[in-house]
């Protein structure tokens, strides 16, 4: 059993290393200007992103992700609690939610620019927020509907006012699923950031990706791709860390109560 575990851990480290090594080996021998050596990409990464373009491009992109994600989370939770608790409101909202969540986001890129007269932060944040609402919203509705009705009824018969009911019962019970929705939203926010910046912008990581491609600077282009990959990965990891803290009580409770 321990030998098996060592083998598993060994493979877990060995395979990625081999893949990276294979990439380097291939690019060294291919001599293709489109596929620079892995080592060249890393050098370009250092030149571009440590820390020449951080202030001018990485920070604006992060701000857009942050603002869009924050708005989406607040709107998603508020609307989700409302729709989760009221059947009438849910009936009214369902056709709209179903239509807009199935809309391929890039179809609204030109419209967002026309309506907001902007390719700056206003349009980027609005675009990111609009599409990031849906994972939070749908998860919140689902979670609120799934709350044990006995809890709500008990609170009601004790005449707990509705603000207290929402704050003390509905939100805490729904939190684990809301957080799961937020994590999907965050991943989506990175994608929406890249799409909107790649479509039209004057700064940002997506913008750097576009101009390095258009000016045939393939080293910096790959460096930008690596950066966006890292960004998605790190934001997810960071969120998991926060989630673990935020939901520590939930895990403890789940572990203590047999399901």
């Amino acid at each position, binding site marked *: 059993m321990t030998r098996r575990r060592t*083998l*598993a*851990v060994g*493979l*877990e*480290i*060995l*395979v*990625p290393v081999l*893949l990276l090594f294979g990439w380097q080996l291939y690019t060294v021998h291919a001599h293709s200007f*489109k596929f620079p050596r892995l080592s060249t990409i890393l050098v370009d990464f250092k030149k571009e992103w440590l820390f020449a373009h951080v202030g001018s491009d990485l920070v604006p992109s992060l701000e857009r992700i942050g603002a869009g994600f924050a708005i989406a989370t607040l709107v998603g939770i508020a609307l989700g609690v409302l729709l989760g608790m009221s059947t*009438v409101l849910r*009936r*009214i*909202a*369902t*056709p*709209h939610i*179903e*239509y*807009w*969540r*199935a*809309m*391929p*986001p*890039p*179809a*609204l*890129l*030109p*419209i967002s620019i*026309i*309506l907001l*007269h902007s390719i700056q932060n206003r349009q980027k944040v609005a675009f990111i927020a609009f599409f990031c609402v849906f994972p939070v919203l749908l998860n919140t*509705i*689902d979670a609120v509907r799934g709350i044990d009705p006995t809890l709500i009824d008990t609170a009601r018969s004790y005449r707990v006012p509705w603000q207290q009911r929402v704050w003390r019962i509905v939100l805490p019970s729904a939190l684990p699923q809301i957080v*799961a929705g937020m994590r999907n939203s965050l*991943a989506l926010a*990175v*994608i929406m950031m*890249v*799409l909107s910046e*790649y*479509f039209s912008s004057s700064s940002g990581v997506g913008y750097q*990706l*576009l101009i*390095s*491609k258009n000016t045939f600077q*393939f080293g910096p*282009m790959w460096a*930008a*791709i690596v950066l*966006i*990959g890292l960004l*998605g*990965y790190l934001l*997810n990891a960071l969120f*998991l860390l926060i*989630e673990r803290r935020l939901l520590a009580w939930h895990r403890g409770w789940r572990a203590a109560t047999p399901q």
Partner: protein
Amino acid sequence: MLAPDALAPAAPATRVRLSTRGIALPTLSVAASLALWELISRTNTISQHDLPAMSTSFRALWHLMETGAFWLAFLRTVRGWALGLLIAAALAVPIGIVLGSFELAARAFRVPIEFLRPIPSAVLIPVLFLTLGTNIRSEIFLATFGAFWPLLVQTMYGVRDVDPVALDTGRSFGLSRLERLVRITLPSSVPYIATGVRIASTVSLILAFTAELFMGIPGLGQKVNVVSSFGETDKVFAYAIAVGFLGLAIHLVFSGLERRALRWHPSQRRGTA
């Protein structure tokens, strides 16, 4: 073991019930919002140049739908979507079965999968410009790449979640590895795969459309790009409406399929623990 948080299986689609009793309210709500759109535009609350009236947009859509060019673009987008989804399924389901069945294989590819999966597929667009070029192959590649990951993860989860008692029973009845796979593992992972297919079907459409919009590959995405650069706002809205309905149709069809796939599953049957 994979970290449970990193590759959590997606929840099945929430069911939208539309009973005859409940249909009046949604209908009214749609009608009201369409009327509001018309009003905002006609009263120039938002300039008609920026927000064409609802009637103008739908008229533009109607005129587009009378042209063959619209339907050709429509079919091209559907083709990119369908091929992307099919190829992704053909790759992801077998690979998912292998990775789900063999712990060591899953461990070996855990890091590459966890790193590649969250990469926004859109970053591949510049690479595709350089390699496959601005044609259908790039579109299919992008759609396949996007649709691959949810299918892979769901399949892996489905295979892992097979009841070990059922597998042991199969083994003691002398079923071979292949028979156990076909008779026990695959049927019990169908609901997971169905959820994966539902998610992948949406992702595939988004990426087929994205490839067309950003790379100028013929299809609805390219049309949107052309009309928006000519400033034909009513047509921009008309195409967006059309794409929205295509997305909605795909979503509804695949949620329906998912529910069918779930229906026979013990977890969905009433009266069983």
